[in-house]
């Protein structure tokens, strides 16, 4: 199974993108599962994803000091045995870094995971302000990505989008950057075509 790992700060648009991408892949008949890890003790994303008719697993280690690694690996192994999805999409919590999650998967490999791609979601409307206050987190999220998706371009000013893109290019040189308005179907279709492996889409 292929794994797509979505990271990005709280509220950056991970669930929104996952809903759209996973529904597209599921519509082509593929087995998709979304694993979601929310911080805090009240989980809402799992229900939002289920309302989109997706197969969902919630990692309920609600406290932010708990390690999600073992729970994640257990969930993946369970899926491997019982559901055999073609694609697993993981929504990391908004305060996790891709590196932290990948480290867990390298420590406890899951046999059938054939490839992992990391997507970091960057909220263009808040990027500058968030980076100023939460520098190490925001920068580590960007540095750990294979692809950056800059969201909310419909709501941001042109200058905000440019500032986010420029900073991202400096922090993660050579990493592709894709700007989206999550309500625009056409851009999301292009993103889905690039992100969802061909064998899953077929």
């Amino acid at each position, binding site marked *: 199974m292929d794994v797509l790992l979505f990271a990005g700060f709280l509220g950056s648009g991970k669930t929104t993108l996952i809903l759209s991408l996973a529904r597209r892949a599921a519509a082509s008949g593929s087995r998709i599962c979304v694993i979601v890890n929310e911080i805090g003790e*009240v989980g*809402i994303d799992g229900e939002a994803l289920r309302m989109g008719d997706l197969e969902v697993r919630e990692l309920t280690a609600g406290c932010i*000091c708990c390690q999600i690694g073992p729970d994640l690996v257990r969930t993946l192994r369970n899926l491997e045995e019982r559901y055999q999805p073609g694609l697993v999409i993981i929504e990391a919590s908004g305060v996790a870094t891709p590196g932290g999650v990948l*480290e867990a998967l390298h*420590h406890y490999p899951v046999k059938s995971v054939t490839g992992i791609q990391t997507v970091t979601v960057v909220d263009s409307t808040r990027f500058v302000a968030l980076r100023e*206050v939460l520098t190490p987190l925001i920068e580590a999220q960007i540095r750990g990505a294979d692809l950056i998706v800059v969201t909310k371009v419909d709501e941001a000013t042109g200058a905000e989008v440019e500032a986010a893109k420029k900073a991202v290019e400096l922090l993660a040189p050579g990493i592709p950057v894709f700007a989206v308005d999550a309500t625009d179907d056409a851009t999301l279709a292009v993103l889905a075509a690039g992100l969802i492996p061909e064998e899953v889409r077929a």
Partner: protein
Amino acid sequence: MSDGLHDFTLPSRGRGETPASTPRLLEPYGARVVLQPAQQELDAEMFLKALLEDVASACLVGGASVIGHLKCLVQAGDRRWFCNLTSTRSGAACRGEGDGRLSLQDGARLDLAVLVYGLPASTIDGLVGDALRSLLEPLGISWSKNMPSVVHASAGR
């Protein structure tokens, strides 16, 4: 092994004494609110939007340094409405099933998560209580609120 969280956040328990000005304190706050059965309908969109916007503004006035994400889900019968807020500039955005008018004949359940930096959960709890009181009392809707240990919206269904 690290899960990548420890460098950036503080544990969510036992920090009630941390001053509100600690900019990087993130104490995830969650509550489950039960709305008692009532005759009237609830305009879910209007209620949830006002709730998140009131709580977000109160958090900023109260000293929060960063709004992370406020999100909630109300379920009444087989209808659900979601609402999210990530900045007071954009305000809250809601979506759900039907026209948003929820029957409270059998009551309703509201799950709310407030993820803001710089305020202890106990302070957020007070602000949430104030907002609920000012929105629900004029409508004559009785409610009760608790801070669960772990609640995921699908649990118990």
